[in-house]
């Protein structure tokens, strides 16, 4: 059991070390957060600043609870997140394992693997918007040229296909994140247990399942947590590709919030929505945090 330092009374080292982080977050995030909370209790409209003082208590929130469209979007966002994160994890793990086994040209391969991360989310949105365009997009063109279909498949219109398209775009953009993290974790893994296992006659699958996987799970959970917080970047993709449509079929929380807040200029209502969706983020984070702690306990590490 690795020993760790306990703080004696008056040992301020860890606090000092953490100060910069805490200060930064408080300054940049906490203050705006409080402001947002305040505006969610008002009927604040962007273009009429005097409405900032128009206190309506919880009216924005009660309106939300009876707003069916909001809850559908909420559910759809959960679905989107769940599918995307799981796919990114599995694919990322697969890629990381494969690349870890190859020795020749590693550096180039790793750079290629990170290629999608070089793309700004809005660029990814535009790129897939054109690729999935039913009339002049290269995907349909390719399918037709290869004779696989004679229809123009409406990737961005049909309910299921549109969800598929935005999930595909999001997974394409972010799988590399998982892959590189898991790869770094694989490389940081001590070799001894692996060799010992092989020597004892375990096959590859057993080695993977019982040694490799538990070791890299903490990294996976870190990645998942950050990705689930960060997946609001998917807003750019969805906004450009479908705008939440058609007919609200791909409406996620963020497109709804942005439209309400900026296009309709109903900032107070938008912030109320944002707070409700923050609960969603917190739930995901909480879930993965607990998984992370459990994984660490399993590995017998520091807590």
């Amino acid at each position, binding site marked *: 059991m*690795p020993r760790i330092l306990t703080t004696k009374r008056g040992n301020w080292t860890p606090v000092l070390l953490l100060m910069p982080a805490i200060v930064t977050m408080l*300054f940049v995030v906490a203050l705006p957060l409080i402001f947002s909370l305040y505006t969610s209790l008002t009927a604040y409209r962007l273009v009429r600043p005097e409405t900032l003082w128009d206190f309506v208590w919880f009216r924005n929130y009660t309106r939300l609870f009876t707003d069916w469209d909001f809850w559908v979007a909420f559910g759809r966002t959960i679905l989107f997140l769940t599918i995307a994160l799981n796919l990114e994890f599995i694919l990322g793990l697969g890629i990381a394992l494969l690349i870890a086994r190859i020795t020749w040209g590693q550096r180039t391969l790793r750079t290629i693997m990170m290629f999608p*991360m070089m793309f700004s989310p809005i660029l990814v949105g535009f790129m897939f918007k054109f690729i999935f365009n039913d009339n002049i997009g290269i995907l349909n063109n390719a399918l037709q040229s290869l004779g696989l279909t004679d229809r123009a498949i409406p990737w961005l219109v049909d309910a299921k296909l549109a969800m598929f398209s935005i999930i595909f775009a999001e997974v394409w953009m972010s799988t590399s994140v998982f892959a590189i993290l898991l790869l770094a974790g694989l490389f940081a893994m001590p*070799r001894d247990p692996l060799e010992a296992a092989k020597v004892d006659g375990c096959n590859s699958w057993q080695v993977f399942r019982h040694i490799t996987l538990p070791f890299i799970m903490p*990294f996976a959970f870190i990645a998942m947590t950050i990705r689930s917080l960060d997946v609001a970047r998917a807003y750019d993709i969805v906004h450009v590709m479908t705008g939440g449509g058609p007919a609200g079929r791909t409406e996620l929380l963020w497109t709804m919030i942005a439209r309400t807040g900026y296009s309709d200029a109903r900032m107070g209502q938008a912030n109320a929505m944002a707070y409700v969706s923050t609960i969603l983020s917190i739930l995901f984070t909480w879930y993965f945090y607990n998984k992370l702690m459990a994984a660490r306990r399993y590995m017998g590490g520091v807590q």
Partner: protein
Amino acid sequence: MTVAMSRPMTAPTRPLKKRAQSAALWFTTFLLMVIMCVPGLWVVLSAFRPNREILAKPPIWVPTEITLGNFAKIFGFGAEQVGIPVTSYFMNSMVIALTSTVIALIIGMAGGYAFARYRFRFKGGIFLGLMLFRAVPGIALSLPVFMMWSRLGLIDTQMGLIIVYVSLNVPFTIWLIDGFFRQIPMSLSEAAQVDGCTRWQAFWKIEFPLARSGIAAAGVFAFLTSWNEYALASQVTRSTDSKTLPVGLMDFTAQFTIDWAGMCAMAVIIIVPALIMTFLVQKHLIAGLTFGGVKG
């Protein structure tokens, strides 16, 4: 050891099986790489083709015309338009991304070390709290940040955007570096201290090199996040004093004409430096394999 006895030697089939496995491995990797790269490569290729060809139907798979005209337009050599101040945007992006990455890494290392090595009150709470701050959707933040920044005179300054990006990256860097520090046994640092190093020296000599892969990974992510970020940048920047490449890219797309080829050219300008930067950092992503011997 029972190794030699327990494994039957089947010399003739083994090399073949191994080669087949290796081939399958290469093939699968290749396929995945292709899927990852094709959309991106299409963008890069489109940058060198005229609009007419890119969107042709039936599609023109083999380019008949390769042109640098799209790039010329951006830099202002086309007859009709003024160019985009790409060099300014590039410098801004570079300065802002690098600075915010370095600062985020420093804060991240300090914080990660604190979490990995110490036990203190509210530790779990602070840990979770840092992450939960990140849970706030950007939409809820963007207007208040704008208001605060404009009162502080940070709008349209590089520093203003750097501060925002640091806060964006800090939770992730802390978590990641913390994870890597935990894998390094305390005994190594203690051994060094027994030999006469201070904690500080031990950190730089022992723990820092061993966690290199984690720090490098965190650095790469922070850099790419800052390099590619759009939403907050468009809030906080206004002119060539601080505008970054992604914002410049969006400005390039007017309401009516999406000059797809021109946009691809701009995209190439954004991608290439990121690619070069990543390639250079690659070698630090492999952890020192030597430390694996001590489990502690």
